[in-house]
């Protein structure tokens, strides 16, 4: 299925503190945006598949975030929940250009 996305500006790179997450609301979507220590910006849906925990407040270690509610470990690049738990969250493409951060969201 062809997917139509739009690119949305969400802020300057310094708006995203390093090794932490940030809750970003785009229209009716809740996203968790992470500024990893390697400089990359990653975005996933801000809701743990387990009990709906706010992932943007989790501890971030390299490309994983640990849900603050029950410590589920989720890969922020591919959205996969790590063993022994199972599941996944939606991921979103991000783009950094001239220190500006953009995110691609599907047009609903």
């Amino acid at each position, binding site marked *: 299925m062809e997917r139509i996305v739009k690119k949305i500006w969400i802020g300057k790179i310094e708006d995203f503190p390093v090794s932490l997450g940030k809750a*970003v609301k*785009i229209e009716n979507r809740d996203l968790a945006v992470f500024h990893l220590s390697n400089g990359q910006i990653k975005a996933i849906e801000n809701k743990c598949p387990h009990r709906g925990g*706010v992932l943007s*407040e*989790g501890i971030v*270690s390299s490309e994983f975030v640990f849900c603050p509610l029950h410590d589920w470990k989720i890969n922020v690049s591919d959205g996969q929940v790590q063993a022994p738990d199972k599941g996944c969250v939606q991921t979103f493409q991000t783009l950094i250009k001239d220190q500006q951060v953009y995110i691609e969201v599907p047009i609903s």
Partner: protein
Amino acid sequence: MKKLVLIGNGMAGIRTIEEILKLLPDYFDITVFGKEPYPNYNRIQLSKVLQGNTELKDITLNEWQWYEDHNILLYPGETVVKIDKKRQLVYTDKGKEAPFDHLIIATGSTPFILPIPGADKEGVTGFRDISDCERMIKESDKYRHATVIGGGILGLEAARGLLNLGMDVDVVELSDYLMEAQLDRTAGELLQEELERQGMQFHLNTQTVEVLGNERVTGVKFKNGNTIATDLVVMAVGIRPNVTLAQEAGLVVNRGIVVNDYMETSSANIYAVGECVEHNERTYGLVAPLYEQGQVLAKQICGMNHQGYKGSIVSTQLKVSGVDVFSAGVIKETPETKVMKVFDEWQKTYKKIVIHNGRLIGAVLYGDTKEGTKLFSYIKKQASVEDYLASWQNTDEEESIVATMSDDEIICGCNGVSKGAIVKAIKEDGLTSLEEVKNSTNAARSCGQCKGMVTDLLELTLGDDYSDNSKETICGCTDLSHEEVVAEIRQKGLTLTKEVMNVLDWKTEEGCSKCRPALNYYLGMIHPVDYKDERESRFVNERLHANIQKDGTYSVVPRMYGGVTNAKDLRKIADVAEKYNVGMIKMTGGQRIDLLGIKKEDLPNVWKELGMPSGYAYGKSVRTVKTCVGAQFCRFGTQDSVGMGIQLEKKFEGLNTPHKVKMGVSACPRNCSEGSVKDVGVVGLDGVWEIYVGGNGGTDLRQADLLVRVKTEEEVLSYTAAFLQYYRENASYLERTSKFVERVGIEQVQKVVMNEALRHDLNQRMDQALSVYKEPWDEAIENQKTLKDLYQNITMK
């Protein structure tokens, strides 16, 4: 700085100093007095020097530079002649005076010289130190014939050395077989046969009664009337602990300087370690026990948690080439013991295992000593015969022995190298062979008895399916335990979580939600002033200073010292609750008011409008001090529990601890604030405060133990501070006081906290930790960057 003086620059004393430096580097002002004009050397390798396999310089353990690097003031060739325990001073033969806060006596022992006529003649020597060794080497040039009195380990090693130096050697032994203390007759006779083949002449069952000669020895005379001609006499009949100095200072002395399980002598702040010591009526002349004692003593002096010294089970091996002898534990047979023996007269191998009440208590091996390490491990554990026999069914057993050993267990007794140190070296330095381990760690470099275990460790560590279950690691990111990581941070002076993970070879790049908060805590605990707390290594509650709820909102608990509030504050709370649509207002278990259902973005405004400090209801920190009404109103109250509680809460407010700490203060034994299930529970009685610690009313119900009874409020504060600091320094992250006290034992906690000097030091370190406290809500409100980074969301239209 506290002044630490060590008398005796030998293996036991310096090992203790090394252990202390690992625990508290730069904490003590250290002075060492040593009789010998050398830096610390490996005394047990002297026989190798005599045998010509090793140079003197190769047995130095700590070079001069080491003393300098650690700011240790060393007086080599200077003997302490007097201890003034009252004024805490020592005096030397060169007229020096040195004051001490802690004194370690490690004066070692001297060879026992038989009190027989002629024993003072020229050419009679012991075999103890470098000068004895040098004398023998020198005299072997001029003289031809040596006699060693004593057929034990030291005597036989000396005899072998003298043979190597080209001398004819006679060995005289009182007993009717060799190494009588370690072997039985069968093994002793096999040994004798081999050593005779190597060239020694034995005179067993023979008592020496006189040394003959004018100025210099020319012969020895035996009780049976026989004499032999000789140019050199080496007395190796035993050692005698050097106790004179301690005795003259008025310390309790028996055969050795008497110490308890904490290596304390009869006098406060004076400790003893090594061969000069008598513990539980036993003295030791081998090196492994000295290291075990040194470890305990270091922890004791540093006020760290330890189980005390319980005595040592020893094993020995003869350092003579071509001879394989091993002995461990109790080898004498009695009517109560049973033995298993395997004797192969043809191949000259012998094995005896001594059993008492169905358990292994000792063993002798001759000819083939490969099984020695395994047997020693079983004997130390007092394993049952069934377990031992079952081990033969399982071919992997060799692996499991080292696997089940704890990390601090010594593998190489000669050089005091622990399993942990070897495993660490294998991993960190990428070692793959026994040689590499020897060079890197010194393990297996002396007697070689532990070679098998070192090889097993290599296999175990490098094998694909390596997993070490004998300890609890912090998390899957590391093979190190909490205790080991803390030790490494102290020793290597690590200051950042990233640095810890790098230097200690973390398996993950940036750790995980378990180790990062733990490391952040440990670093802050160890470097209270200099460490900058890492907000990204904090769990959300401690990062945002509010409690996250299941729906992503937060709860706010304002500080309310001692659970006491007033109308004005209550009004303010009510106004804020209304304005921010608080979902629920509830009393907490710790007598505070909880405002639930607040949005993250609203937190800073809520705090600003409340104008109260954070109640810390979310942190691994001192939480609340619950109080009863107390003497002010209650008809039963005997003390001002509210006032005491407020003082405690104000003092320890915001203190980071391994896990949450809840306190309670009651004013009578009815204990309405439930101090029996608090981490610290204070109960006021008439004129007395009782302090209870280690209680828990949650997951692991545990009744608190009485720590101490004191009279004044200042004492309550100071003992509580000492306890909490001891807990902070010694507990694992996320270990509650209940588990901690259970683990180390209340007696140990008491021992530390009751010791005035230790209590004083703990209080100082606590004050330092408290000095950096900043009220977190104010701090957040006033910092625009914090507000933006942590509390603001981004909303795009």
